[in-house]
C-alpha cells in the first residue's frame, strides 16, 4: 500500500506530469474511458451496445482533440460522427435486426488469431514510436494570435475597454492607434481594437482549406456526392 502510494507520488512528481497536471489528469481519464469502451466495443455480444460504446470512443477522441487545442476538429467530430455516423449505424442495426440481449454469433472463433495480430501490431508500432518520439513534448503556442495594422479611428466608435485602457476618456474625433498602443493592451482588449484580427484555430483552418487545400476540399465534396449516389443506387430496391 505504502509502496504503491510512493510509486504514485514518484510518478506524479516527474516533470512531464507536473508541467501540465490538469491536462494530464484529463488525458488519463479520457484515455481510460476511451480504451475501455473500445475494448468493450470489439468484444460485446450486442450490436447496439457496440454502437453505443463506439459513440463513447468517438466522444472521447473529440475530447482529446479539444485537449490538443483543436476545437474545430472536436466539434466536427461530434457533429459528423456522433450526430450522423452513429445515428446511421443505429438506424442500420435497427432496420436489419435489433436484438435485445446478447448474440454470441457476432464474433468469430478466430479471436486468438485476431488478438495475436493486434498485439504484434501494437508491439511494432509502440516500439517504433517510443524509439522515435521519446521525450518529445507537445508545446502549445498562443492559440489565438492577433494581427494588427495601425489605423485611425473615431473615439466614439471605440469600445469602452479600449478607451479606458488607452486613456482616451474625454477625447473626441479621430485618434491614431499605433503598434505600441496595441502592444500595451491585454489580449482580451486587443481583439476589440479596430484593425486587429484574431487568427484563431477556426480562421487558420479555414484559410488553409480554402487556399492551399482547395483541390482536396473540392475532391472530398465530389467524393461525398459520389458516395451519396452510390449508396442510393446500392441500397435501392428494384
Amino acid at each position: 500500500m505504502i509502496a504503491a502510494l510512493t510509486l504514485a507520488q514518484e510518478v506524479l512528481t516527474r516533470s512531464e506530469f507536473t508541467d501540465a497536471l490538469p491536462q494530464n489528469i484529463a488525458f488519463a481519464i479520457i484515455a481510460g474511458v476511451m480504451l475501455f469502451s473500445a475494448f468493450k466495443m470489439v468484444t460485446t455480444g450486442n450490436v447496439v451496445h457496440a454502437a453505443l460504446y463506439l459513440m463513447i470512443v468517438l466522444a472521447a477522441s473529440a475530447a482529446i482533440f479539444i485537449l490538443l487545442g483543436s476545437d474545430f476538429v472536436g466539434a466536427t467530430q461530434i457533429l459528423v460522427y456522433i450526430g450522423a455516423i452513429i445515428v446511421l449505424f443505429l438506424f442500420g442495426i435497427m432496420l436489419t435486426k435489433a436484438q435485445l440481449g446478447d448474440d454470441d454469433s457476432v464474433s468469430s472463433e478466430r479471436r486468438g488469431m485476431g488478438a495475436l495480430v493486434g498485439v504484434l501490431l501494437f508491439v511494432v508500432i509502440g516500439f517504433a514510436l517510443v524509439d522515435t518520439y521519446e521525450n518529445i513534448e507537445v508545446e502549445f503556442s498562443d492559440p489565438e494570435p492577433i494581427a494588427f495594422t495601425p489605423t485611425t479611428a473615431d473615439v466614439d466608435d471605440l469600445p469602452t475597454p479600449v478607451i479606458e485602457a488607452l486613456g482616451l476618456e474625454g477625447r473626441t474625433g479621430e485618434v491614431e492607434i499605433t503598434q505600441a498602443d496595441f502592444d500595451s493592451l491585454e489580449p482580451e482588449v486587443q481583439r476589440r481594437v479596430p484593425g486587429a484580427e484574431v487568427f484563431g484555430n477556426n480562421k487558420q483552418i479555414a484559410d488553409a482549406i480554402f487556399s492551399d487545400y482547395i483541390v482536396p476540399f473540392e475532391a472530398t465534396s465530389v467524393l461525398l456526392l459520389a458516395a451519396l449516389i452510390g449508396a442510393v443506387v446500392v441500397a435501392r430496391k428494384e
Partner: protein
Amino acid sequence: MIALAYWVETIFRSLGGLAAVLLPAGPIVYIFLFKMMSFMQSRLGPTEAGPAGTLQLIAEVGKWIQKEDIFPRKADRLVFAAAPFVVLASSFLLVLVVPFGPDAWFVNLDTGIYFALAVSSVSVIGILMAGWASASKYSMLGGLRAAGQLIAYELPLVLAVMGVVIQAGTLNMQDIVLAQAEGEIFGFGGIGNPFILTQFLGFVIFMIAMQAELTQPPFDMPVAESELVTGYMTEYSGIRFLLFFIGEFATAGIFGMIASALFLGGWWVPGLDPDSNLFNILGPGIMMAKVMGVMFLVFWFRFTYPRFREDQLQQLAWKVLIPLSLVNIVITGILKVAF
C-alpha cells in the same frame, strides 16, 4: 471584475450552467404549458396549488419523483436507464457556449455556435437508445421517427445559422452578440444590428427548425399520443420520465437562449454600451425576457397548428427549408462581399 481563483470561477460557472439549464424550464412549463394553453383553449388551468396554481409545478414534480421507476421485463436495463441522461447531457453541453453578459459566460469557445449545433445532435442518440431499449414497438417507432425528424431538421437549423455567422464573421457566440451591438444596418448604427432585422429569413427558418428539433407540435410525430402513446417515452415512468420532461423543456429554454443570442442581440439591448459592467448583472435577466418572447412564439405555434403527416414533415424540411436557407446563405454572402 473581481479576479477569482481558477477553481472558484469554475465552480461558479458550473453552478451557473446548472441554473441556466434548470431555471427557465419551470417558468416555461408554468406560464406557457399551463396558463397560456388553458387561456387559448378557454380553460382555467391550474388554480388550486398556490396563488393562481403557481405551485402546481412543484406538485407535479413531487408526484413524478414518488412514483415507481418501472423497467419493462425485456428491456435492456443499462441502455434504458442511461437514455434520459444522454438527452439531458445534450442540454447541459448546449448551454455551455451561451453568453449572459460581457463576462458572464460559461466557456468562451471560439467554435461557439458550431459546438452548440454539434452537441444538440447528441440528444438523437438518447432518443434512439430509449426507443430501442424499451423493447416496445411503439417506442421503437417513436425513436426512429424522432431520429429521422431530428436529422432532417438539423440541416436547416445549421444552414439558417450560417447566415448569421457570415454576417458576424465569427462562430464565437460572445462575438456574435458584440457584432450585433456594434453593427450597422446599411450604414445606420442607431440600434446596432440585431440580426433578426437583416436575417429575418434565417430567423424564420431557425424558429421552424427549432420547433421540429424540440418535437413540439406541429412537429410531434415521434411522440404522437394518439398513435404511438408518446413514442419513445411510452415505457418510462417516475423520475426517468421526469428527466425526459425536464430535458425537453430545458432544451426548449436553451434553444430560446441561442435564438435570442443569434438573432435578438442576446444579453444586450439597444441604447446601452455593450461594455458596461451593468450587463453582467442585467444580462441574464434580459436574456430571460428574450427567451420568454421566443418561447411565446414556439408555444403559440404549438397550440395553433395540427400535427403534420410524416411525409409532409420531411417534405417541408428537404424541399422548402433547406433550399430557402441555401438561398439565404448565398444572398448573405453576396451582400457581405458587396458591403
